[in-house]
């Protein structure tokens, strides 16, 4: 996967210990103080107000309710991640959960039970959260139960001067659909193109690998709609690995799962997880910390669960 060439986003792969050693503060942001950007942000003040620096965490593919060898305690890895997130300094303003909250099941009763349990777990963390559905949560009933328990399938909000849009590209198939695209267009028409725009959804908005459903059929239509925006960042899950890519004005970032890792396309024909190893049980599992600076620059830090204290006993 190609690395985004943007000068305004810095990504680093830190261990949790290394991250905490830095005092948890936003690490040296790449300077982007060009005259162009200053002019752009003067404009953004008119629409959504100045950006106040803040931090949020992306959590994805938790697959609560899964029973099998790929992860012998999904609840263990979720609570481990939430425990680590709770100890971050500065504290994150909110969690973005990018889909596959629960493991798919044909039983409506069981799906609702898993969604309610997930909601309970997140509520207990005392951190505000925003979620979007994954196909495991919503494909079986087109998101009916998801809406009942977690709320809208797509929505938008503004946080400290940054526009966020949560999208659903899974509940009726791997596409956004004409209705949702109309809604997105209405939202984007109201926004200032100079304001940073962050999209979050489950499946990638570009074609990573269609034979594994790692794509959005009408993702190009959405990318064209957002073409006039100066800075668009997409946070997604679904691919169960860190991934980054750039299309036109968009930076795409796939987050680390807490359930199990997947390989890059090409290593397997049929997509399926492998059994959790005894020596490295948390291989490829983690979450992402995003620090937004006052200028709208992002500091992206991917943290691995494996740095947990080995004395911890998990259920």
């Amino acid at each position, binding site marked *: 996967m190609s690395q985004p060439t943007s000068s305004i986003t810095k990504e680093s792969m830190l261990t949790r210990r290394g991250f905490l050693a830095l005092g948890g503060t936003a690490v040296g942001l790449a300077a982007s103080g060009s005259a162009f950007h200053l002019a*752009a942000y003067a404009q953004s003040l008119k629409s959504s107000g100045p950006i106040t620096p803040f931090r949020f965490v992306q959590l994805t593919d938790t697959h609560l309710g899964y029973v099998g060898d790929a992860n012998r305690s999904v609840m263990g890895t979720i609570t481990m991640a939430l425990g680590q997130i709770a100890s971050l300094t500065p504290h994150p303003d909110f969690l973005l959960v990018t889909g596959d909250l629960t493991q798919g099941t*044909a039983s409506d009763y069981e799906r609702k039970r898993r969604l309610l349990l997930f909601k309970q777990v997140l509520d207990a963390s005392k951190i505000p959260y925003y979620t979007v559905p994954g196909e495991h949560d919503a494909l079986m009933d087109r998101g009916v139960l998801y809406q009942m328990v977690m709320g809208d399938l797509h929505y938008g909000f503004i946080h400290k001067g940054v526009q966020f849009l949560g999208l659903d590209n899974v509940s009726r*198939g791997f596409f956004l659909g004409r209705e949702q695209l109309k809604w997105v267009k209405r939202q984007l028409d109201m926004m200032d193109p100079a304001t940073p725009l962050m999209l979050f959804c489950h499946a990638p908005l570009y074609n990573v690998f*269609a034979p594994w459903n790692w794509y959005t059929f009408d993702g190009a239509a959405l990318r064209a709609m957002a073409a006039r925006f100066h800075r668009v960042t997409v946070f997604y899950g679904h691919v169960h690995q860190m991934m980054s890519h750039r299309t036109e004005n968009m930076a795409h970032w796939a987050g680390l799962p807490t359930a199990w890792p997947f390989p890059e396309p090409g290593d397997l024909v049929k*997509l399926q997880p492998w059994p959790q190893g005894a020596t490295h049980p948390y291989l490829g599992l983690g979450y992402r910390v995003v620090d937004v600076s006052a200028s709208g620059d992002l500091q992206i830090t991917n943290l691995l669960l494996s740095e947990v204290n080995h004395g911890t006993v998990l259920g």
Partner: protein
Amino acid sequence: MAPYWAKVCLLIMCFGLTLSSYAGVANAALPPPFRHRIVPKPIPRQKPSVPSIAEGAALFAESCLSCHGPRGNGEGFWILPTGTSAPRLDNLATEDWPAQKIAQVIAKGDGMMPAWGETMTPGQIQSLTLYVESLNQRTVPVPKTETPKLKPQTVLVRMSH
């Protein structure tokens, strides 16, 4: 030593080439603060495409192959969230699955089958229907052959003392 007028011409040419490099891509080559000020070029209206098996095959490879498999025999590369497999598409009997019914399931969906009509055009759905029909070799009547039932045979074993 080149004359003065030649240097001026060269400079003008370089300047012109630089400007022309910006002209090709309306939105991509410009720095961000100016991007939204450029009115994007209108996309030329395409002629309405005639539904074809070729278009259907391309759409199948992008949207259906993952679950139904490259041959449409249900051996996909992606396991459904419930752990099951998508149905076969290469054994659809004409009397049970007329083209209209195939098109309806593609457009409206069924269970975990996506409702492709929410994003694909009617022409694309027709193309997909043609392709799915082509997987079934419907024009060739398949003769019904009955396998002869084996009659139980009496085996005589000569017992020798």
